């Protein structure tokens, strides 16, 4: 199996197969990152498509090929941020309430016994302010170190760390409140 560097080199030499393989390798991660941020399946699809289109156009300019994944994720995060900025903050809550997100998640949820816990945790994630949510998703879903999270978010490492912990504390606080109720 070729590594990222080899696939990128293949792409730069005009191989469509290598590019396709590169997309196949990261499409799920990009899609899910976008979905965790915007909470809407259709928008997550648009973001995924747009992100790879940017890769297609901009990969030649990427100087360090080892940085492909963080570069791709930063494109995804920026696109997701633009999407969130464009619509009113309430709309994703509406989507969630209408079941857009819940609906698309159903397929996976059916396979899980602890359905309620999953829904609850995702709800809590979507109640976080966008920057905290981005930090939590990049750190927990993408498993990036804080240095990378900070780089993608365009902030200091300490800021990324405090956004992450603020998000975690907030989610736990809300979870605790619900448990008390």
């Amino acid at each position, binding site marked *: 199996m070729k590594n990222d560097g080899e696939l990128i080199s293949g792409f730069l030499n005009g191989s469509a197969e290598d590019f396709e393989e590169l997309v*196949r390798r990261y*499409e799920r991660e990009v899609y899910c990152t976008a979905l965790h941020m915007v909470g809407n399946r259709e928008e997550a699809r648009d973001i995924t498509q747009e992100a*790879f289109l940017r890769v*297609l156009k901009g990969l030649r300019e990427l100087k360090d090929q080892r940085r492909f994944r963080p570069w791709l994720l930063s494109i995804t995060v920026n696109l997701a941020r633009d999407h969130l900025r464009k619509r009113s903050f309430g709309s994703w809550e509406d989507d969630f309430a209408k079941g857009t997100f819940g609906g698309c998640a159903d397929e996976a949820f059916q396979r899980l016994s602890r359905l309620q816990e999953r829904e609850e*945790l995702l709800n809590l994630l979507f109640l976080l302010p966008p920057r905290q949510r981005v930090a939590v*998703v990049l750190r927990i879903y993408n498993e990036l*170190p804080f240095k990378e999270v900070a780089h993608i978010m365009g902030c200091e490492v300490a800021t990324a*760390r405090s956004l992450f912990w603020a998000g*975690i504390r907030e989610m*736990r606080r809300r979870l605790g409140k619900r448990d008390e109720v």
Partner: protein
Amino acid sequence: MKCEDFLKDWGEGKRLSFRKSLAFILHWMRCRECRENYAFIRKLSRVLKGEEWADEAFFREMRRGLVEEGRKAGVFVSRPSSSRPFFTFPRLLVPLGGVLVTLTLALAFFLLQFPSKEPGASFDYGLYSWDGVVLVSQLDSDELRALEGELEGAFGSCPSLVYSLSITPWAEVMDQVSANSRLLAPLLMEERSERAAGRMEEV
């Protein structure tokens, strides 16, 4: 010290030193908040990673669209089919394999058919070795049976001539046959003359 400070190195993806690990474990044992934070993060991680909402049809369509877009933009080089050698090794492997299988089957079929032991039937009898086929003699079925008996004596008990010869090294077969040829030749001569005499009597 705040709890999250203990998780700082975990957040950086670093390995903890022995001293830090010890401090971390001691803190961990005492601090409820730290344990709860960690448990919560693990739980959230399972939730975020456990999903499989992306549908393959969309991804397939997206990849196709992207490649098309790249072709339009001239990013991809479309290789003319004539520039690729047709007889590459993997491509040759399939027909060669087919030919080999056919030959093996044909040989197996031939060996299974041979010899037919109908009385009085005459046929070419070959001694088989892994090196090839050598025609020994043209024998009828009685002669063959006699030859079988002789060879059986020479090689020990064997269920069939073809079987015993095919698993015996060719040089050994030739040695044995030549060693027994003196016995074999008169036997065959005798049998032939007896049969000829029998036929004469019938007439």
